[in-house]
């Protein structure tokens, strides 16, 4: 097929991925103590110029950049320069890590004990480790792990220690500092702490950015941070934050280093420790403040089985190659480089695009377990109202079908090769006993039917299970996202015309670009990729200007549209809320509680099927999308929080378009 010839180079099936090695296996057979005390001599950056934390501090405080900002701040505030300098060094004191090998060894010992009880295995791609080692030697390295659990950064350091690699310094949120003892321990294992928000504080920004840059430039240690900024509660990747990425790219853009290597790392958990915690949080139970005692309460998690972890060190990405032909570095020639400047449009676009590409790289190397597919199927079956659950054999058949489909779409699926499918299914189900119930050979979500309390409480209890389950399904979303958007576009556009389907696709993609990782400006590529995949799986035929569904394609399309249906309906219900119930004085803060109440009402009356719409993540994302599209405006209201001004006509027409009641062009027109 012509289509195939054109796009074959991007066949995700051809993606070569490395094999994994279980690092716990050796730990189970040899002394943990000897392991923790063994000789540690990592490969370091070839031009390493500095090795002590103290020197690093001096270097930061004496940097031209910081001195310039200190002078500026003292001029602006009228404060004495020494005073400002003192402030700067206090900020640095609060922020800086003090990596100590002894602490790392302590962690190496205790974490081994903990990991061995919690997890069956921790699998790492050793080729990735070798690439990383090479990269650390050649250029300053930035590690960019995905963020799904508190575990992530301890795990990262643990793995690097195990492989005798340079230990990273890690940007951590200040909230950890609340845990007194643990905070200090983390600091000694390489974490440095940054305030969650410091928008206007020039001095803070200067100290912070200089600190990170200096570590990078001198090759002090690999810098590690989370592109997503915070743990994803939904297991979907979050829209990347650009601040730190901007900082670490800066030394390259200004020529202070030859290159900076970015290494995306994908950490996938078979079972997430914070599973139900996240669901509750999304439903409105506020996140408990991190505290040491809270951590100990979490001890009961120690007795459970959390399956295995897969950590995939992705292909190192050179900032130099990313910037090639995209950024004209001459723009920095005309101002001394230590004077802080707001990055220009070109740089912002570049950093943003790079961030999306890196998050996509993380997504692509996430290992998916069979359970992820089962969760997707169980959720769909549940919503299709199958009473009494699905028969085990039927579920197995569906799972095998989905396994093949997901592989064709390029999923990095770990499906045991030699075990019979029924065994794979039942062992997956047993690991997630809390979420499923099996009775008389039929499987369904473990929605506590009995439960006491009012219907609302019952609903919320069920929603916890649904959201937990959805978080597993979400792990596979990136695989199906583009084909699913296409499937949805075909359904909503109710036309076979390729151009109309494209318009519809483009509309949906735009609508959902706060919800999913969709690279900005890549609509055409995404559309082509989706077409290619669906043609390849035999679900579509695209002769010339038409898009035709094949006989066997209906099942695929039905699955794909169902996978997005909760989001589609969720967004619609948010729109409906804004049209029907939003008052003049609706503030940002009131939005989530109000929309939640509205949704509960609809769920209870049965006009809405998807409890997932209760997720505050979905609600916030849909609001962000509406704000971005201009259907809602945020009006700054004096000392009070900004209020939301709703353009009801436009929101209404967006809702209708989402529901397929209006062609996409109308929605575009309504925007004007």
């Amino acid at each position, binding site marked *: 097929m012509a289509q195939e010839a054109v796009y074959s180079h991007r066949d995700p099936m051809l993606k070569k991925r490395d094999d994994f090695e279980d690092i716990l296996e050796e730990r189970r057979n040899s002394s943990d103590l000897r392991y923790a005390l063994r000789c540690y001599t990592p490969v370091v950056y070839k031009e390493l110029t500095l090795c002590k934390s103290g020197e690093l501090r001096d270097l930061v405080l004496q940097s031209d950049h910081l001195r310039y900002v200190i002078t500026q701040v003292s001029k602006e505030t009228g404060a004495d320069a020494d005073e400002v300098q003192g402030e700067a060094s206090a900020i640095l004191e609060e922020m800086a890590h003090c990596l100590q090998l002894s602490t790392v060894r302590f962690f190496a010992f205790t974490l081994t004990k903990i990991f061995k009880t919690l997890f069956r295995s921790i699998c790492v791609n050793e080729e990735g480790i070798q690439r990383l080692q090479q990269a650390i030697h050649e250029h300053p390295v930035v590690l960019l792990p995905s963020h799904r659990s508190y575990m992530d950064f301890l795990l990262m350091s643990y793995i690097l220690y195990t492989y005798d690699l340079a230990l990273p310094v890690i940007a951590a949120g200040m909230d950890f500092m609340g845990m007194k003892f643990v905070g200090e321990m983390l600091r000694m294992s390489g974490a440095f702490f940054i305030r969650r928000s410091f928008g206007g504080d020039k001095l803070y920004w200067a100290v912070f950015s200089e600190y990170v840059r200096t570590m990078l430039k001198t090759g002090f240690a690999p810098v590690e941070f989370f592109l997503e900024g915070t743990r994803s509660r939904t297991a979907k990747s979050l829209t990347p934050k650009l601040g730190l990425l901007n900082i670490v790219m800066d030394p390259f853009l200004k*020529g202070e280093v*030859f*290159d900076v290597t970015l290494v995306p790392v994908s950490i996938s958990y078979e079972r997430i420790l914070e599973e139900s915690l996240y669901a509750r949080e999304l439903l409105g139970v506020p996140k408990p403040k991190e505290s040491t005692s809270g951590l100990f309460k979490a001890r009961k998690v120690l007795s459970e089985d959390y399956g295995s972890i897969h950590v995939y060190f992705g292909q190192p990405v050179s900032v130099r190659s990313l910037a090639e032909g995209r950024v*004209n*570095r001459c723009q920095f*020639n005309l101002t001394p*480089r230590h004077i802080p400047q707001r990055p220009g449009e070109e740089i912002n676009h570049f950093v943003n695009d790079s961030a999306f590409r890196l998050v996509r790289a993380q997504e692509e190397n996430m290992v998916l377990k069979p359970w992820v597919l089962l969760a997707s199927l169980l959720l769909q079956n549940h919503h299709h109202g199958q009473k009494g659950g699905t028969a085990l054999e039927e579920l197995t058949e569906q799972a095998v079908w989905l396994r093949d489909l997901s592989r064709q779409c390029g999923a990095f699926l770990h499906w045991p090769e030699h075990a019979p499918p029924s065994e794979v299914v039942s062992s997956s189900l047993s690991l997630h006993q809390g979420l499923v119930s099996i009775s008389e050979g039929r499987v369904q979500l473990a929605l506590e039917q009995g439960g006491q309390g009012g219907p609302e409480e019952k609903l919320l209890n069920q929603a916890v299970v649904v959201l937990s389950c959805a978080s597993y399904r979400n792990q596979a979303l990136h695989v199906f996202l583009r084909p699913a958007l296409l499937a949805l576009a075909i359904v909503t556009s109710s036309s076979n015309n390729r151009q109309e389907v494209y318009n519809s696709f483009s509309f949906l993609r735009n609508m959902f670009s706060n919800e999913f990782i969709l690279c900005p400006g890549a609509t055409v590529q995404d559309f082509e990729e989706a077409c290619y995949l669906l043609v390849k799986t035999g679900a579509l035929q695209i002769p010339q200007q038409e898009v035709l569904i094949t006989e066997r394609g209906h099942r695929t399309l039905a699955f794909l549209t169902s996978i997005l249906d909760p989001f589609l309906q969720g967004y619609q219900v948010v729109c409906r809320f804004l049209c029907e119930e939003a008052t003049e004085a609706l503030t940002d803060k009131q939005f989530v509680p109000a929309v939640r109440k509205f949704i509960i009402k609809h769920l209870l009356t049965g006009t809405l099927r998807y409890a997932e719409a209760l997720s505050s993540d979905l609600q916030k994302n849909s609001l962000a999308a509406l704000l971005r599209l201009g259907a809602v405006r945020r009006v700054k209201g004096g000392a009070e929080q900004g209020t939301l001004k709703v353009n009801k006509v436009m929101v209404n027409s967006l809702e209708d378009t989402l529901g397929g009641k209006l062609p996409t062009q109308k929605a575009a027109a309504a925007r004007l």
Partner: protein
Amino acid sequence: MASNSSGGGSDRQRTAQQRLSIIAGHLQRPVDGNPAILAEECKAQESKPDASSEERRVPRRRQEIMKWNGWGYSDSRFLFNKKGQAEFTGKRYRLSGMIIPGLKDWMEGTFGASLQHKAPATPILNSNAIQPPNLHEAFVEELKSTGIPFSHDAEDRVFRAHGHCLHEIFALREGKFGRVPDMVVWPNCHNDVVKIVELACKHNVCLIPYGGGTSVSSALECPHEETRSIVSLDTSQMNRILWIDEKNLTVHVEAGIVGQDLERLLNESGYCTGHEPDSMEFSSLGGWVATRASGMKKNIYGNIEDLVVHIKMVTPRGVIEKSCMGPRMSTGPDVHHFIMGSEGTLGVVTEVTMKIRPMPEYQKYGSVVFPNFEQGVACLREVARQRCAPASIRLMDNEQFKFGHALKPQVSSIFTSFLDGLKKLYITKFKGFDPNRLCVATLLFEGDREKVLQHEKQVYDIAAKFGGLAAGEDNGQRGYMLTFVIAYLRDLGMDYYVIGESFETSVPWDRVLDICRNVKARIVRECKEKGVQFPPLSTCRVTQTYDAGACVYFYFAFNYRGLSDPVHVYEQVEHAAREEILANGGSLSHHHGVGKLRKEWMRDTISNVGMGMLKSVKDYVDPNNIFGNRNLL
């Protein structure tokens, strides 16, 4: 001539003799086995006449004394003798006739070159391979009647069809010739040039001025698209000093004179210009003006723009010159700056008045070893800050230091080699310098004796603050010798599959280290990506200091065995290196000029309006593009 003045009575002639021996210091072989002569006070030398002191003006048939397909004099070249030792032939240079034992190992070690793998050049120029001249009959007829000598001999034409870019020399060695000028004319004076330009305008013939032929910017290449008859205007016969004005310390010279002749003739009168570009043996005064040249000793004497007082240039619109020789004028934009750097696109510089200075009483070389390049740069920056730079100060990186070391001639006594060993031991073991990181600065002081010694102390004191150790005069002197023989060395490299070249830039102080590191790394990376089989030599030196920045010089060479189109690879890498330079805040060129090689970056360099300004000058001065070498714009 210096040789004629031997035993001459006047003081002036004696100083001239001293001066000559100084120049000989970095140009010529040592006199009577006394290599340390320059380290001591200059004594009058009543020695036998040197070969170099004979009539050395550039002949019309340059090929009689110079290579047609390589650098410099035919009698001087590097070769590996029967024993496999490197040797430099001839009698002209300090290194001439000497064995250089370290060179073979260095070449093998650095490039993976081998004496077994030779890539010899085409030995003889095959005239049949050259396109017959496209002569403009009427122009030739009228030119004949003026009596100005001209030629359309193939060898003469080929000689003037190129500069010394790698691709130009590589093609010659392979016996390949592109478009060459159709004839060569040799005007004898300003008026001859006026006549030639008038005739060229009348008959619409393209003129390309040719001075010393040392261009490294493809400036002398004949444009492929040129369909008119191309006439190379060789200024070499306009080489007289017309007058010396001792009251104002100026000299009026015909612009075809080459550097070494100008200095020699002035030295006879006890003066010098102090302008010593590395190419001064062959490059001409007119060429310096046309490219905005820079001399090694600019810290004392200034660059060409500081030295020039008055310029006469013949253009298609007529002759341009100022009406007086005031030392500075506020008369609108300085028209000299349209001429300087015009690269032969506007006319021919025929006569120049420039500043002269009495010859320095005393000269002293020196060198400082630094533990690493960073410290060295910091020291140079401090020297510049204190404005106490010696006549010349250069900082070579580690690779170049090793390169310089490899060029050490065979030492005659065991004692010297023993001393060398001790020195090395002291620096690496006792002082803890890493031999793979240390770098060396070479120094040249000039002036009266007392001041030189004082100055020297000041500079060494600064160096000490940056961990620098004085490393002797010999090292310094050898460093400067290197610049004169490096071009010969390239020819040797090409005999053994090694190609390379140098390029330069100027950059603000705060970016010096970054640009050095990044450009060198870029070269290594590009070579790898382009399939070069051996690691390249990628090295640099900081070669001039200014108040606000420095001039950086890069050397880049690699072994091209296994590549089908080495020149193309070379050009791609050099292109990438230039992009890297620009991205790191470096300039397009410090003194080599733009020519055709770097034209593509001009617009970004000087902005659209800047281009428009230059273009409108060209359009006014030369509307028919008579000076059609198509450089610069």
